[in-house]
């Protein structure tokens, strides 16, 4: 029996090559897309789960609200004290570790013999790190690897970079020319799906601040390993109680929180972590896209099968008369669906393995079939097979097996194949989805372009960022002088960090005319006097910093030292002042006393997902991390080469590295852009699948109407009128789809845009453009068939009837 089914199924496939191919191609593309997205999502969802203790590890967050803050500030950065103190005080905590970049401001310069590299991914952590997290040691002992302040653990590829094939253990690396570090372990490269990524890991003990336990000054990331069975929330509460125990009630409030390790990557709202995090919303969106693509491909299949029902009606009738029960026929058609699904699945998986490397590149993630656990992959494929077979096969099977034999045998099949309405609805459905995707990608594209090109109040075009790494100001000053001579350099300014990385943790705690307990949390950045000028930040009141301000803060006597502050509009508003009122007011920023000299127009120093928050810029010349060089943008390569050669003269022991400020801004929208890119790619796939379906239906419909077309031609209809007649039938469906889809897309995208503090408004032309695109694509798809039909020889089509 089964053999008989398979035989008929196979012959059916072969006989209807075009439509079989369309069904399979559509399904294969759908399945491949589904698996691509599933691989991507698997990768997102498996983040950090490779840690054996993943379920018990939490990241510590720290929240505070100063008296005059409107909102609670939450950060993942913590002071030095919590980990060692809580580990001792709280019974439910098994272990804890502080992890932090060796230097936030710049890369470490690491030397071995004549090999000198800048290492961007050097972290330091407490000795417990490798006991809490699971990284595979190729040599060395995880328990003791970070025991000394001179210990350093390398990843396999870093070890190879310095030592080639030689054994790395015990070798000595010079870090920043001052620290000699002994390699105490080599681990496998850190997987992409770890939130803690590093090429080398030093000991936290090498940080000067490791010596004192402080409850202020948050600089580290802390991870806590709870005892099995311990309640995360209860522990967080104990921590919060502990820290608030001896605090006066009047001041601000503080909280500790524990984020489960496995939720940090996708769910954390605690701001900047060790790496930019993902976004659970995008996981949902892409998951939805994956399912929609699969459904679309199934719909295609379903549509083509029911379209062919007219042709199969007779076979069904005969089989029924021969004694086939409905159930048996149902099984037969399901078997046919199964065969097509199987072929498509195979093609889809082949396509998947071919496309995964491309997709990895595209998404910037390491994706391969290895992303999957093998059992899971097999389970997924089997499930996919069953689901697709049922999804695509059930309806047609039910539909076909229910045919009444007498009606089909009397040739009344066309009457019964009244699935016409259904088929049209399905085509409309496909195009609703396609148009939805087109609109969404256009709007998402607009928004992403918008936030990247938005005048952020900072002129960041052609601004080079150089790593200064805390060089003395005099040296910086003369280096600036040298490159200032260079053609192409318009100006340069040193600052604590790049304007994208303005740090929190400051507060204005004394202010003229405010109560003694006034306290407003702000972000702040120590800058040079030329900062606003170089970056084109506009001042709306007061005057820019000048030499006098510079001299005032450089005063060696702390008593006489006076600061001049520049506040942005948001900060002034937070103080409850008008810009003009603020000028000349005396304030204190964490003990730095001075006056407000200027008010800057709001500019974006953080992601445009967020509203602009208060910021204070103040001159302070003791530590500069970055040099921002404004170039003319002409002959940039020459300019950079010239700066590089000056750099080597000034700092022979430090490699020259630079990037553009623009890149830093772009990096803030990496997740958005990545998702946008994926969305665009799959919009194309959606359209492709829908067009395959439409094409298939056009093939059928023209085949069915071949006699009508023949007669019309004999009666004198022209090619254009016939092609138009057929095309219009389909275009009509697409038009209906556009009408249905537009409000849905509008609604969804409006929602998505809410995520951005700065957003485009949705323009009507987007809908026109999307609709026009869909209609044009549909027309091209159907047009070919229509014209072919219109050109066919009428005598031939009539005779074959």
């Amino acid at each position: 029996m089964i053999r008989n089914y398979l035989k008929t199924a196979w012959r059916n496939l072969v006989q209807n090559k075009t439509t079989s191919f369309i069904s399979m191609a559509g399904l294969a593309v759908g399945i491949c897309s589904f698996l691509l997205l599933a691989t991507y999502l698997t990768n997102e969802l498996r983040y950090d789960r490779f840690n054996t203790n993943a379920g018990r590890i939490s990241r510590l967050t720290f929240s505070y609200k100063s008296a005059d803050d409107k909102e609670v500030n939450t950060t993942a950065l913590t002071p030095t004290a919590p980990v060692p103190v809580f580990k001792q005080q709280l019974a439910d905590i098994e272990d804890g570790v502080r992890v932090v970049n060796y230097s936030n401001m710049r890369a470490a310069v690491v030397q071995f013999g004549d090999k000198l590299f800048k290492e961007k991914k050097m972290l330091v952590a407490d000795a417990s790190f490798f006991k809490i997290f699971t990284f595979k040691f190729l040599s060395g002992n995880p328990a003791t690897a970070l025991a000394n302040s001179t210990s350093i653990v390398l990843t396999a590829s870093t070890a190879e970079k310095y030592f080639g094939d030689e054994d790395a253990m015990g070798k000595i690396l010079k870090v920043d020319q001052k620290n000699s570090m002994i390699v105490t372990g080599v681990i496998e490269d850190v997987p992409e799906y770890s939130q803690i990524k590093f090429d080398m890991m030093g000991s936290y003990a090498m940080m000067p601040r490791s010596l004192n336990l402080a409850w202020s000054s948050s600089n580290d990331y802390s991870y806590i390993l709870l005892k099995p069975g311990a309640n995360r929330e209860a522990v967080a509460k104990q921590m919060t109680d502990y820290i608030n125990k001896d605090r006066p009630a009047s001041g601000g409030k503080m909280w500790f929180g524990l984020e489960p390790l496995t939720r940090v990557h996708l769910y954390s709202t605690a701001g900047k972590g060790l790496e930019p995090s993902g976004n659970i919303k995008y996981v949902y969106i892409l998951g939805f896209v994956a399912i929609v693509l699969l459904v679309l491909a199934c719909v295609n299949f379903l549509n083509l099968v029911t379209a062919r029902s007219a042709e199969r009606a007779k076979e069904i009738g005969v089989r029924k008369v021969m004694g086939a029960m409905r159930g048996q026929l149902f099984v037969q058609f399901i078997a046919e669906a199964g065969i097509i699904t199987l072929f498509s699945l195979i093609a889809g998986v082949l396509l998947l393995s071919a496309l995964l490397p491309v997709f990895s590149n595209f998404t910037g993630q390491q994706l391969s079939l290895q992303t999957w656990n093998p059992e899971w992959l097999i389970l997924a494929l089997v499930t996919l097979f069953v689901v697709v077979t049922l999804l695509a096969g059930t309806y047609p099977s039910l539909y076909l097996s229910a045919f009444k034999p007498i009606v089909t045998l009397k040739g009344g099949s066309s009457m019964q194949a009244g699935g016409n309405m259904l088929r049209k609805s399905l085509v409309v459905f496909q195009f609703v989805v396609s148009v939805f995707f087109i609109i969404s990608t256009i709007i998402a594209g607009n928004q992403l372009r918008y936030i990247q090109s938005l005048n952020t109040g900072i002129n960041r075009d052609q601004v080079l960022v150089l790593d200064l790494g805390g060089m003395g100001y005099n040296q910086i000053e003369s280096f600036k002088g040298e490159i200032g001579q260079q053609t192409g350099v318009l100006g340069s300014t040193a600052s604590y960090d790049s304007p994208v990385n303005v740090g929190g943790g400051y507060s204005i705690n004394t202010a003229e005319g405010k109560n003694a307990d006034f306290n407003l949390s702000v972000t702040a950045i120590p800058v040079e006097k030329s900062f606003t000028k170089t970056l084109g930040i506009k001042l709306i009141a007061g005057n820019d910093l000048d030499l006098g301000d510079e001299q005032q803060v450089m005063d060696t006597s702390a008593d006489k030292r006076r600061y001049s502050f520049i506040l942005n509009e948001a900060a002034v508003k937070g103080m409850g002042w008008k810009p003009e009122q603020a000028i000349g007011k005396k304030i204190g920023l964490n003990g730095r006393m001075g006056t407000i000299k200027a008010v800057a127009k709001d500019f974006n120093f953080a992601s445009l997902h967020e509203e602009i928050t208060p910021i204070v810029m103040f001159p302070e010349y003791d530590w500069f991390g970055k040099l921002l060089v404004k170039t003319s943008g002409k002959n940039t390569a020459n300019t950079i080469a010239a700066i590089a050669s000056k750099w080597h003269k000034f700092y022979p022991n430090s490699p020259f590295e630079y990037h553009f400020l623009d890149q830093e801004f772009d990096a803030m929208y990496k997740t958005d852009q990545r998702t946008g890119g994926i969305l665009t790619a799959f919009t194309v796939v959606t359209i492709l699948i829908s067009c395959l379906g439409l094409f298939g239906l056009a093939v059928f419909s023209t085949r069915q109407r071949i006699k009508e077309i023949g007669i019309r031609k004999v009666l004198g209809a022209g090619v254009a009128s016939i092609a138009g007649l057929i095309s219009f039938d389909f275009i009509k469906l697409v038009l209906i789809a556009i009408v249905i889809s537009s409000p849905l897309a509008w609604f969804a995208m409006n929602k998505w845009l809410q995520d951005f503090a700065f957003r485009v408004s949705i323009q009507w032309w987007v809908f026109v453009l999307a609709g026009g695109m869909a209609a044009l694509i549909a027309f091209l798809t159907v047009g070919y068939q229509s014209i072919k039909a219109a050109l066919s020889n009428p005598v031939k089509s009539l005779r074959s009837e």
Partner: protein
Amino acid sequence: MLSLQHISKYYQVGGNKNFVVNDISLDVDEGEFVSIMGPSGSGKSTLLNIIGMLDEPNDGYHYFVNQPVHQLKEKQRAALYKQYIGFVFQAYHLIDELTVYENIETPLIYQDVKGSERKAMVADMLDRFQIVGKKDLFPAQLSGGQQQLVGIARALIAKPKLLLADEPTGNLNSKQGEEIMELFRKLNKEDGVTIIQVTHSEKNAEYGSRIINLLDGRVESSRKF
């Protein structure tokens, strides 16, 4: 074997009922060989389809081997059909995707006959109708007459107790037609198969033991020999 009582079948055309079978009552005993005749459009095929349970009448009672067909569910009807009836269609109705061999084999498959047994039975049929050489061809590769033979072979393979044939010789030459009629007579006499055939040929009709003439959906005359 079967009994039709006041069976009517009509189509609604405009506001009118257009009777195709009009109040026909008919009893057929086991072992009979009935020929149905009548002009084109007189309702012969419709009547045969009703007898074969392929079509449902609008009115009347229908008993088959003492079972009230008008009360049975589709499933039960199909089971009854499978057990008793073989049908030869006016328009052959072979399955285009299957070869001659497979077409003939199909009813056996649905009756769960074992593979080896099927082989023997199909071989026997191919032999009987002298179409062994055509067994691997598809219907589209056969002439109309050959297709008709395959259709008959297919109807007979499951050894039905009641054979319903709608112009079984319509596309055959007179010699072939005669052979088929001889075969029917032999089945009827020796194996006791009840046969109801529709035919336009007076000569073929006379192979039967009873001839029923239809006109406009009514029995115009009925002769028994």
